[in-house]
């Protein structure tokens, strides 16, 4: 098998393993929360009023990162913890293929689950025709926002999966570092006023949703999110993808060179 075929073989196997794992079901439960809350709290008169906090504050800030970190942290460190890494590292397959294959499986699984979750939230909010347009927050969802939200969810899940995967090549407990990054660093930096927000992934993820037009989604978001100037969505997307590629390169480089000590 060629390295690319080996990567896909690893991905297929890892995906099957993931689907029967406890972590997968934890991710499913996490992903069910936004639809559940959207369903529970929606006000048919003001769908946007509820969509914004569920979408941005709950899903993109908390749940999608958590789901990504949960699965991404299994990529290498799970085998180190289980002491099974020896078996795969002594096969004629590039270590990078093992890393990328396992990352790909986790990313696809997280993305699929979050896409379904996001699609339901978006679709649900899009169902209602508001009676009153007297306040901005009473309006319907802007055109295309639901789709962009699904895209942002998928990308958010993939990003945090990649972050955790990269961490898992170096640390035995990547989830701890990942959670620290996502819920301490990002929570602080992404919500500070001004350009400091650019140091967080959340800033660019929000940039996918917010368009600099006066009647768009941004007018319904909480004020602290609006205290920054966002890049156009395409620029945000480019930077996020660039960061993801950077993480994959660092992870691949690390896994090629690192010695993993499996104490018996």
């Amino acid at each position, binding site marked *: *098998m060629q390295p690319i075929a*080996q990567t896909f*073989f*690893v991905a297929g*196997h890892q995906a099957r*393993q993931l689907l*029967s794992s406890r972590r997968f079901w934890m991710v499913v439960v996490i992903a069910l929360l936004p639809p559940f809350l959207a369903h529970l709290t929606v006000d048919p008169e003001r769908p946007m009023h509820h969509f914004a906090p569920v979408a941005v504050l709950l899903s993109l800030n908390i749940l999608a990162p958590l789901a990504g970190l949960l699965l991404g942290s299994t990529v290498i460190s799970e085998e180190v913890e*289980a*002491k*099974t890494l*020896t*078996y*795969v*590292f*002594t*096969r*004629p*397959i*590039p*270590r990078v293929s093992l890393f990328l294959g396992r990352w790909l499986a986790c990313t696809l699984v997280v993305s699929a689950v979050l896409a379904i979750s996001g699609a339901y939230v978006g679709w649900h909010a899009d169902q209602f025709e508001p009676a009153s347009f007297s306040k901005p927050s009473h309006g319907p969802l802007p055109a295309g926002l639901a789709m962009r939200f699904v895209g942002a969810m998928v990308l958010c899940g993939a990003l945090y999966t990649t972050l955790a995967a990269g961490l898992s090549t170096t640390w035995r407990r990547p989830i701890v570092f990942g959670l620290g990054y996502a819920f301490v660093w990002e929570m602080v930096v992404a919500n500070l006023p001004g350009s400091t927000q650019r140091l967080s992934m959340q800033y660019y993820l929000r940039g996918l949703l917010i368009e600099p037009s006066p009647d768009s989604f941004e007018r319904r978001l909480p004020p602290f999110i609006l205290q920054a100037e966002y890049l156009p969505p395409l620029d945000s997307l480019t930077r996020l993808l660039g960061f993801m590629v950077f993480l994959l390169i660092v992870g691949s480089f690390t896994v*090629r*060179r690192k*010695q*993993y*000590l*499996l*104490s*018996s």
Partner: protein
Amino acid sequence: MNALIEAHNLGKWYGEVIGLSDLSVNFAPGITGLLGPNGAGKSTFMRIIVGELKPSRGELKVLDMTPFANRKLYPYLGFAPQQDALYESMTGYGFVRHLLRLGGFTRSDASARAKRAMEQVGLQDAMNRPCKGYSKGMRQRTRLAQAIAHDPELLVLDEPLTGLDPVARRQIMELFRSLAEAGKSLIVSSHVLHEVQSLTDSIVLLHRGRLLAQGTVGDIRSLLSSHPREVALSARKARELAVALVARPHVQRVELVDDENLVVRTRQLDALYEELPGMVQNLQPGLRSMKSSDANLESVFDFLVQ
């Protein structure tokens, strides 16, 4: 040089802990026993051989290749690690088959090889059960199966007989012999010395990360000219024989175990063997048996590590 493995001044340390120190050793084809007490550096050395760890200093060639993360080497190498780890949710057969698929075998080839390997280790009846339900011995045999399934040239087996019951142990040792007869080379680590001794005469002794000795048991014994050796004697008049023996200059000590058994400790075993027939003729002690209790590997090992 036709050595399978050549190590020159190999060193490995984990922070301040020394795993291997200045180890220079060659392994020839065939079965070689890698011996040493716990913490001797056997597993560290094996992990460097299979390319899981990098040496901190020195050079190592395995089948003329540098092993660390070298996927060109892995088709020729089978490794059964010491740690008791398998993919718990998979069956033993599925586990071996998956690793074969990772190694590039087609589905049908991987299936056939996995089945054959499970049969070779005597797990054909349990191969479709999940690994999490396996006994310690079955898990050990599964680890061996994944090591031999791709028919490698060189097998590196870290404590492969641990956890096996006597029947399985004999079966696996037979398997090792048949693999060696088929031209494969095996490096078998153990601290259960008699097992290795019954498998091979070629041994490498490690202690505290250093090479203590290498060669056959006989070679090593010949190096130990100053090593006091013990001979157990059983005689009807053991007390009289003890008195005669203790007068000999080369005899260091005579221990009377009971009325009919004694143990002689001598610096010159040859001299004892030369003199003993005359003493028996003169004293008529009714000698029934004579056994050099330290002629086995265990005593060599004990002496060397002291």
